[in-house]
């Protein structure tokens, strides 16, 4: 295998001659394209590295990669030859985003791709996510996918959109913000906008249709969207309009998710489709007991659980939960799952349910299994409460505060996980610190004698506060090791009390002697 900066192609005999099956990024930048005769490629690029293509091995590798992607979402599937779908609905909150409750479970997928040549591969990953999720969690998730694949030598592009088709197009042909990044998040509802500037090939059309469209002058998807449908359907067949509808979410596009081997899972199929949440809850209770029994046998506890629902119309929906500590308490897990149940739209009914422990960790045997509500052993374990809050509010919204050794007030606190070990340091106890820290600091008008007197009065939100007493200044210098422009920055903090007895934390930027330290403006930074 040549170094990554040397061109590499794979070759396959297409019946008549050796042809290029796949080309890596360097090779493509030199003008080599798949389908080109190998002799021509070798003539164009002397010293070209050629390895024989192994389509079956590639397909197997892609399936393994799709199984690996289960760490991100409960529904993944390989998209041969070079993509992976990941249905990321309701999963980004575990990566720090906020999960909102979606009104309906629209079709959602994400696809990821890997090249035909595993080591030299280009991979495109696409995702389509739930409409109501915050982009931060999605972007964090995609960035994590791409970074981890890059460690494995796979160049991947990832995108998340409302529909699988949209994600496919944006991942391979770039979204509106596709400035060299491998990660694109198409905001919910913006799929059509993101698709318009892309070439028609992004619609997953066969080569003849794409070429035909280009011949007719349709270069961009936007032009196709504006054209009347009937003549297009007449000329190119239903495939074109179906792809358009799939990309825009007008018709659903189920993916056939892979079932990873070796994971603890339980499956129940029903003779009659289930519709009511009560019935689904009953099944959840049964499935969690089954999974927990198997987890106990293996000495494991679940950290991530996926519950897949197979609907009558052959589509799948899923919910996933995470726990802060490995757990195999059926009541706890069932409760977490039940809280997410409102995400599921049963449609015409649920035919089967499958609970998979996607991520497990060793857990000592003999954990007391108590009833969650009012159970005597659940008392000391805050992780149960944390799990519920995290699954409802999102991982970043539940935290503890820990001291940071920084004099700059807004940097003196960092968030740590709610179950992290206790911090070893404390904030210096003698310094006055306000109960509410305003962010950002509010500019105020203040009257003060320079350089070292407290303000005599200040005006905040058009209200004048006359200052009776004050304490200060506490001088805080910029952290020059963090930002160059903080080299000489300085703040003088005063704790002041107004006529009503309310106490405020004011600072003046600059030491009032050297203009380089600040521009002498006053700010209100906190309320005591």
């Amino acid at each position, binding site marked *: 295998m040549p170094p990554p900066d040397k061109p590499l192609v794979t070759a396959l005999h297409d019946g008549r001659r050796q042809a290029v099956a796949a080309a890596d990024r360097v090779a493509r930048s030199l003008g080599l394209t798949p389908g080109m005769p190998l002799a021509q490629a070798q003539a164009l690029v002397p010293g070209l590295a050629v390895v024989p293509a192994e389509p079956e091995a590639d397909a197997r590798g892609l399936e393994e990669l799709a199984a690996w992607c289960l760490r991100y979402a409960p529904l993944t599937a390989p998209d041969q030859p070079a993509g992976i779908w990941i249905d990321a609905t309701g999963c980004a909150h575990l990566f720090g985003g906020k999960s909102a409750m979606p009104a309906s479970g629209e079709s959602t997928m994400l696809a990821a791709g890997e090249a035909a040549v595993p080591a030299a591969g280009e991979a495109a990953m696409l995702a389509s996510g739930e409409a109501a999720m915050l982009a931060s969690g999605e972007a964090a998730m995609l960035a994590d996918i791409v970074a981890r694949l890059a460690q494995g030598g796979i160049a991947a592009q990832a995108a998340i959109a409302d529909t699988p088709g949209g994600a496919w197009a944006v991942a391979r042909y770039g979204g509106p913000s596709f400035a060299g990044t491998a990660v694109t998040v198409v905001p919910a509802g913006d799929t059509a906008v993101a698709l318009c500037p892309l070439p028609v090939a992004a619609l997953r059309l066969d080569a003849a249709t794409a070429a035909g469209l280009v011949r007719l002058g349709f270069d961009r998807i936007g032009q196709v969207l504006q054209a009347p449908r009937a003549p297009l359907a007449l000329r190119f067949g239903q495939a074109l309009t179906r792809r358009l509808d799939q990309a825009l979410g007008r018709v659903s596009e189920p993916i056939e998710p892979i079932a990873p081997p070796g994971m603890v899972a339980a499956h129940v199929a029903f003779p009659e489709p289930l519709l009511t949440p009560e019935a689904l809850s009953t099944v959840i209770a049964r499935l969690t007991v089954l999974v927990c029994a198997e987890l106990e046998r293996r000495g494991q506890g679940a950290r991530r659980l996926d519950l897949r629902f197979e609907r009558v119309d052959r589509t799948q929906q899923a919910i996933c939960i995470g726990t802060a500590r490995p757990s195999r308490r059926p009541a706890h897990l069932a409760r977490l799952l039940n809280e997410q149940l409102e995400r599921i739209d049963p449609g015409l009914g649920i035919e089967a349910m499958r609970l998979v422990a996607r991520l497990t960790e060793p857990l000592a045997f003999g954990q007391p299994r108590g009833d969650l*509500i*009012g159970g005597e052993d*659940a*008392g*000391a*374990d*805050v992780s*149960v*409460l*944390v799990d*519920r*809050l995290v699954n*409802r*509010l999102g991982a970043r*919204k*539940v*935290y*503890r*505060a*820990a*001291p940071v050794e920084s004099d700059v*007030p807004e940097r*003196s*606190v960092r968030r740590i996980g*709610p179950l992290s070990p*206790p*911090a070893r340091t*404390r*904030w210096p*106890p003698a310094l*006055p*610190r*306000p*109960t*509410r*820290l*305003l*962010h950002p600091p509010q500019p105020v008008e203040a009257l003060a004698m320079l350089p070292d007197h*407290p303000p005599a009065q200040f005006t905040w939100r058009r*209200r004048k506060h006359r200052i*009776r*007493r*004050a*304490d200060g200044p506490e001088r805080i210098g910029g952290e020059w090791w963090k930002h160059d422009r903080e080299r000489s920055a300085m703040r003088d903090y005063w*704790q002041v*009390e107004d*006529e*009503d*007895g*309310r*106490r405020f934390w004011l600072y003046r930027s600059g030491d009032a002697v050297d203009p380089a330290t600040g521009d002498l403006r006053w700010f209100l930074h*906190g*309320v*005591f």
Partner: protein
Amino acid sequence: MEQILTTAARLAALKASIARIGQPARTAGTTLPFGVAAVDARLPGGGLALGALHEVGGGGADIEHGAAAALLIAGILARRPGPVLWLLERPDLFAPALDAAGLRADRVIYAEAGKPAAVLQGMEEGLRHPGLAGVAGELSGRLTLTASRRLQLAAESSGTLCFALRRSRRHDDPMLAEPTAAVTRWRVAALPSPPVLAHAPQTPGLARPRWRLDLLRCRGGEPASWIMEATDATGHLGLPADLADRPAAAPPERRRAAAG
């Protein structure tokens, strides 16, 4: 005379049975005293009832930030063992200040709920979880009778101390005067503090902050108000030294039945 005695005895028996109906049986040690005799004497049970919902709000302009109210709550929770759940609508609480009131940062789990409804939900979740020292929720919205009753019942079931920190953008929000199922309702307002040195009032510096603490409503007790020194590093309030020897602000007002 005998007639009066029997009436009084009957009244006492009735009061006792009403108390039994109104709240679950409290055994000794189910209150947390403030450690200030003047305050504890006015509270039924000699302190703040555990396993109950208490409302705390700021006074005057501080109703928006509830800075003093947060410190009061932190000081009370600092004196109970166990972890604390603190629900926020937005993250403007500054943890070092709570630490300075004795509530170590290691003990507090913050949850940013965003909306008042989510705060209420999170509070109830915390109250149903046994083993917490207390749950504090910052609410900028309405606290209805139903919602507060849910919290009160949840607090009773686990014995967890529960605080609703009421905030509002309006200084005299009528919403805050609406009845709730809370056991007590407190208002904490800043008062001008005395000079650092009484004999040299011009000395610069700030003395310990001074609060006016109003008990606006109290189930089984009467409203009262005190002038107090703010929460110290161990979570205790103090009686101002220059006021300590005087009787509490005013003799308790007689409350008429109709004014309840």
